[in-house]
């Protein structure tokens, strides 16, 4: 066998039995990295909305004192604004036209940078939520311990150390969790495409 034989066999391959869809309605894209990311994003969008709604009812569920309502909902409003900003931005990001008709190199670069951009946007989103997480937690700790600890005389060194440790651990955990999450759900696709881009480099 030589390349002429391959060429001849290729030209004569029978493909009459290949079945083409009769309609475009049922065509669903699901197996490209951007489709996977869109799917992940859609799920997260739903979870995020459910979490926001749930968080909005927390003062009632936990019977918070009336004086805590105003600061809670002030913080909650800013939290919702931040979430809406990022979620809309992420949604708009994926509504753009696909670029599969570009040259292979351009198409791969566009896909790669879309994924990288999404990863960075996602991390920023996570970090933007961290202060809220810490503030909500401190608020609940304050309300929870106000029955047993007298805060009017100030915090003891032990309390301050515990508070500092909680804040530091929360931020660290959030940072690590975000890195893992982004790498696990998006990073592997970026890495795979980067590998193919490298194969295209001039020799």
């Amino acid at each position, binding site marked *: *066998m*030589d*390349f002429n*034989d*391959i*060429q*001849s*066999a*290729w030209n*004569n*391959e029978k*493909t009459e039995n*290949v079945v*083409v*869809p*009769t*309609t*475009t309605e049922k*065509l*669903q*894209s*699901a*197996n*490209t*990295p951007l489709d*996977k990311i869109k799917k992940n994003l859609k799920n997260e969008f739903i979870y995020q909305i459910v979490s926001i709604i749930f968080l909005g009812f927390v003062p009632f569920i936990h019977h918070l004192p009336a004086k805590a309502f105003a600061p809670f909902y002030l913080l909650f409003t800013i939290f919702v604004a931040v979430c809406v900003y990022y979620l809309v931005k992420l949604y708009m990001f994926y509504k753009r*036209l*696909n670029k*599969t*008709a*570009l*040259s*292979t*190199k*351009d*198409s*791969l670069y566009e*896909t790669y940078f879309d994924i990288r951009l999404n990863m960075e946007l996602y991390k920023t989103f996570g970090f933007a939520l961290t202060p809220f997480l810490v503030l909500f937690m401190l608020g609940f700790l304050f309300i929870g311990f106000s029955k047993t600890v007298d805060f009017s005389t100030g915090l003891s060194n032990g309390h301050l150390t515990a508070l500092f440790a909680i804040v530091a651990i929360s931020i660290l955990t959030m940072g690590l969790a975000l890195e893992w999450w982004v790498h696990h759900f998006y990073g592997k*696709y970026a890495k795979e*495409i980067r590998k*193919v881009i490298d*194969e*295209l480099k*001039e*020799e």
Partner: protein
Amino acid sequence: MRTKEQEFLTRIEQHKGILYKVSKMYMDNPDDQQDLFQEIVCQLWKANDTFKGDSQFSTWMYRVAINTSIIFLKKEKRKVDKYEIASDNIREEDCDAHIKESQLEHFYRAVQKLDKIDKAIIFYQLEGFSHKEIGESMGISEGNARVKLNRAKEKLKEIIKNQGYGF
């Protein structure tokens, strides 16, 4: 809308052989090949409005098909390499049609071992693209396309030889 869709599906029907061959080059088992075929048709439909008619439909279609195949992700549940199992049954027949069939099977089996870019370059070569046209479609220089094509052909030759088929 209906006419546009019908026109698109007619074109796909005319070029289905090529889409089938691309799917076979990039995926090693029939289920994944079918998935990739569907994915390519889907991406072509999604990108249909970007086809301005200033190039041939087939040229534009090749590009979308290859770009989709390169980034296509296999379904994870299919771990068994059915193609490897099936290939044990290949027999060399005397009749010409069977020889061609056998050569094609060896070719498809060997091409699975190439990387994604080499597969694309071999595909364009078999479809009669010049080095310049390969370069344009891939977004690389003509010289780079030539170097990559020669290298891919050498790799393919070695793989086919290692399969025990005379080359």
